[in-house]
């Protein structure tokens, strides 16, 4: 199965008192295994709502969501929790690590909810931490780590249960430009070497350039969906026409 995500006519409407606010107005999209996608749009465009549904945190009002061929939009909350544990990894703008907890323990956290034994957890955590380039400082707490290091820990945590999909919401929003580049390069490496499907939400074009495909949201619908036709280096024209740089 080459499709990781397929959404058909996804609608989401929020009710605020008497007023109905349509956040998504008919989204249809397919994402294949191994793709690296950037989702862009201003606030209110529906991209955050879309990510919440992709991440099994929110239920669509209408439409279907297939994750690896299985319809998940109508599952129970407990079943969603299981999916989030096993098949989806999250990376947030604010890192969202547990404070006063070591990097190692933070990475182990998802494994505590699927019953891995202590030694197994430790081994696996060390494995993914070296995968993201954090061999040392495993016993440091978040307040002893730089922003870039914290985000690496968060990425390791997202990968620890071997998910097929990683969802990153403005992962470089709290980082300076050079660290941002490091993190995005890391995502690229994970995508090309490990074949992990990655969806990044961003409002910065520089960050979106690291991805191979860019989906633009506006007012609850997709207004464009473009692929890069050449290499994955930034500053390449998106329209599919080579500009001879």
């Amino acid at each position, binding site marked *: 199965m080459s499709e990781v995500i397929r959404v058909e006519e996804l609608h989401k409407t929020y009710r605020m008192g008497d007023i109905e606010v349509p956040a998504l107005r008919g989204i249809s999209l397919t994402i294949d295994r191994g793709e690296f996608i950037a989702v862009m749009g201003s606030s209110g465009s529906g991209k955050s709502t879309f990510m919440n549904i992709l991440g099994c945190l929110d239920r669509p009002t209408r439409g279907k969501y297939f994750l690896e061929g299985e319809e998940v939009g109508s599952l129970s909350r407990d079943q969603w929790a299981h999916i989030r544990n096993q098949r989806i990894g999250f990376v947030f703008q604010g890192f969202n690590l547990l404070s006063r907890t070591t990097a190692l323990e933070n990475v182990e956290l*998802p494994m505590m909810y699927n019953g891995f034994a202590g030694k197994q957890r430790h081994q696996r955590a060390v494995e993914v931490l070296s995968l993201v380039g954090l061999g040392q400082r495993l016993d440091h707490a978040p307040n002893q780590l730089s922003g870039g290091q914290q985000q690496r820990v968060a990425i390791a945590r997202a990968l620890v249960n071997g998910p097929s999909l990683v969802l990153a919401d403005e992962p470089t929003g709290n980082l300076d430009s050079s660290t941002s580049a490091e993190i995005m390069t890391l995502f690229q490496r994970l995508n090309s070497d490990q074949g992990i499907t990655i969806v990044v939400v961003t409002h910065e074009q520089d960050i979106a350039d690291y991805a191979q495909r860019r989906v633009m949201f506006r007012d609850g619908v997709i207004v464009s969906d473009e692929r890069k036709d050449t290499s994955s280096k930034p500053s390449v024209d998106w329209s599919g026409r080579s500009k001879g740089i």
Partner: protein
Amino acid sequence: MTFRIALRALARNKLRSFLTMLGIIIGVGAVIAMVAIGEGAKATIRAQIASLGTNVLIILPGTATQGGVRTGFGGVNTLTEGDAKAIREEIRPVAFVSPVLRRPEQIVAGNLNWNTLVQGVAPEFQYIREWQVAGGRFLHDGDIENDGKVAVLGETVVRNLFGNDDPVDAVIRIRNIPFRVVGVLAPKGQSSQGADQDDTVLIPYTSMQKRLMRITYVQTIIASAVSADRVQEAQEQVTLLLRQRHRIQPEREDDFFIRNLSDISEAASSSARVMAVLLGAVASISLLVGGIGIMNIMLVSVTERTREIGIRMAVGARSRDIMLQFLVEAVVMAATGGSVGILLGIGSSEILKFWAQWPTLVSPIIVAIAFLFSGAVGVFFGFYPAQKAANLDPIDALRYE
């Protein structure tokens, strides 16, 4: 697994966990200590009353409306040694009888003197009061018949007049009349009124009447019943006998008053019991307050950890996992607080016993109940916060500032 998650979470903020437990610690400690004080008081009272002699009746002259208390120092003089003898011979449920006369006197021995309570008694006094001699002998019938000038000394008197020497065969003077010491009483300790029972000198009641007081009546008569369940019967029969002997008309009141020590003991025990229950209740209230404290702090904690709960849900924790985690946190805090409180309570009771000389008795049942109760408090007061945590929406929780 949830247990480990909960323990790690508690360890992450040790100060807050400790402060949360503080209420339970103090509450349980107070319950244990208060109940120990209550139990100690009950046991002491029981022992003190037992030391007075069981199944004892005290017959005093005067009417019930006069209170009948200590009317021996001038008051109505209606009791005689004849009454005592009649009771001894004719009332079957009565085992032993002794007249008792008492007066504070100064005792002189050599160049020392000591003020004490002199009691004129019969030989059967030792059986009624269950008082043994530690040396020499008690008074016997011959002493009574001859108005013997003999005395049996209580331990406090011996200590103050003779130090460590054996006083038997020594001579003491009461109102300048020489009495030969024939025996020393075993120690008895304090009465339930707080008086030193060993601060006394016993002489034959006939000597007391004729030599010291020059009276022919008897101030009180004490008697012991054959067994506890016949005390009431004895009391009734003595009443009838005395009314007859004193020729009291049917419509008139008794000219005497009988006090039943087991009534007094029952009253004292029940008031000690009430006190113990009250103390326990007050302490239980503080335990309740401790539980409310846990709930409040956990509610605050849930709010402060909203983001953390969101993160846990995002990586795969179900509502059930979150609920269980917070519930276990509450129970662990309550049980730990309870254990520390138990140690604190036992420690305080022991300290009170050594330093303040208060009798305390730690009851293992209360310890077990206190521990279980604190666990229950944890479950009960932790439930609402745990449920609140479990019902958070992950999206909102992750957005929480």
